[in-house]
């Protein structure tokens, strides 16, 4: 008789937002082997970016690669295109772009925390975090005019300016949010049942993090000091109070904590941006056609986002290569599942904050 059972998870499952299919080879409920199918969301964006859309439209198309980190996709593409056009944005544009990216990071991290709580069977915490998240959604809606797909950044600048009422709203909501995050940190740290579910579960060791090239919060929770915000000079992150957040244990708890503390850091960054916003134009003319090859890395909420854009002086680009954070995190993810309980699988999966629509493009 066969000793193992196969438990599927996905492609449609209540604990999944996106279609991904896992086949867990289990002994009783202990996972001993994993097989994943990540290609459900493949749409063919990379080809369309070079065939159907002109380089000015591509920014709006790549935003639809992923709804959660839409702004970082547009930003990376825009930066790459601007590099090819030989244009550098002024400080105000840079600051406004950074503000949007950090707000996006806050909302994405909060969603991940909520989802992890939901998948650990803690419905009330899910409701609490989702309720608090609306504060940040309000801000984003007020700034960009839409709750999810912001379409805020375009080649040559940003589409909307920050008025004084908006700054007041941001200040108010960030203040409220900062208190809520403090209580959340206490809750995640002290709740008895959460520590049963999170501590020591789904561990990614530092050694594995190096071997499998883990990135983003996943790597930082394991103690691997990598953050594109510290490794790129496209944005002046140091001067607005960016700190690298590191944990060492590499379990779900550590990942949650990296996210929580990054939210705190991002709130501080946003406040600094609002206080020190330079004056200047928000939209400048970037003329010409993209020519050459440019490489851009941006820290998306889930880790490093990589764009390689090549153009040959025409309206259509030659190649747009999108390498998304979850795409690189999948080998590490598969490794972590082995040896854990099936009951923990949804929570572990949510704690990676996988973004399949990013992965499969």
């Amino acid at each position: 008789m066969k000793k193992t059972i196969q438990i599927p998870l996905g492609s449609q499952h209540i604990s999944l937002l996106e279609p991904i299919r896992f086949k867990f080879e289990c002994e009783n409920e202990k996972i001993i082997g994993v097989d994943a199918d990540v290609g459900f969301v493949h749409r063919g964006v990379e080809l369309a970016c070079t065939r159907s859309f002109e380089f000015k439209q591509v920014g709006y198309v790549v935003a639809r690669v992923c709804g959660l980190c839409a702004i970082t996709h547009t930003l990376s593409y825009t930066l790459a295109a601007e590099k090819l056009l030989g244009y550098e944005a002024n400080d105000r544009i840079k600051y406004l772009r950074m503000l949007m990216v950090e707000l996006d990071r806050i909302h994405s991290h909060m969603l991940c925390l909520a989802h992890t709580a939901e998948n650990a069977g803690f419905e009330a915490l899910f409701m609490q975090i989702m309720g608090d998240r609306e504060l940040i959604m309000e801000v984003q809606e007020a700034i960009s005019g839409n709750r999810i797909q912001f379409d805020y950044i375009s080649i040559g600048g940003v589409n909307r300016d920050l008025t004084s009422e908006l700054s007041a709203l941001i200040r108010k909501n960030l203040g409220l949010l900062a208190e809520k995050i403090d209580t959340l940190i206490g809750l995640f740290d002290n709740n008895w049942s959460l520590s049963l579910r999170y501590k020591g579960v789904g561990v990614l060791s530092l050694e594995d993090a190096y071997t499998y090239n883990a990135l983003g919060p996943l790597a930082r929770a394991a103690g691997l000091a990598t953050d594109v915000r510290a490794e790129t000079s496209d944005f002046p992150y140091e001067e607005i109070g960016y700190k690298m957040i590191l944990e060492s244990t590499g379990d779900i708890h550590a990942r949650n904590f990296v996210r929580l503390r990054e939210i705190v850091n991002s709130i501080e960054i946003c406040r600094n941006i609002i206080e020190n916003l330079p004056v200047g134009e928000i939209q400048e003319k970037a003329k010409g056609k993209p020519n050459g090859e440019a490489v851009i890395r941006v820290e998306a909420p889930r880790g490093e986002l990589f764009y390689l854009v090549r153009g040959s002086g025409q309206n259509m680009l030659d190649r747009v290569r999108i390498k998304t954070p979850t795409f690189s995190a999948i080998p590490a993810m598969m490794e972590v599942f082995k040896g854990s309980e099936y009951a923990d699988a949804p929570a572990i999966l949510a704690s990676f904050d996988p973004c399949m629509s990013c992965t499969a493009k």
Partner: protein
Amino acid sequence: MRKIETTLPALLNEIGAFYLPKEWHFLSVNGIDLGGGKIELQWIFSRYGVKDEIVIYYALSDYETAVPSIVSLIPSAIMGEREIVDMFGLKVDGAQRGLYLDPDSLPHPLRGES
């Protein structure tokens, strides 16, 4: 950004000599169709904790030549290799088709002529 030219047969040795897990972060395998049956393959690395240091190994190939797999050195490269198998219809040892594409979708969408 530093670009280093290499050839497919020498690739494993060069990357093996270059790659240190604790120093270099492997980003991705990338392919660019140059037209005329030629394809440029890139292996992209970045250095941990150093600003703007990206190293790209690149090699020219055609559609038929088998591409060596670097999974033995960098296990996470499997994703990138499977992707170029799907998108360009190349042959890579140990990487199978089917990460994104189904049997009845386009055979190799990112090739120049398709």
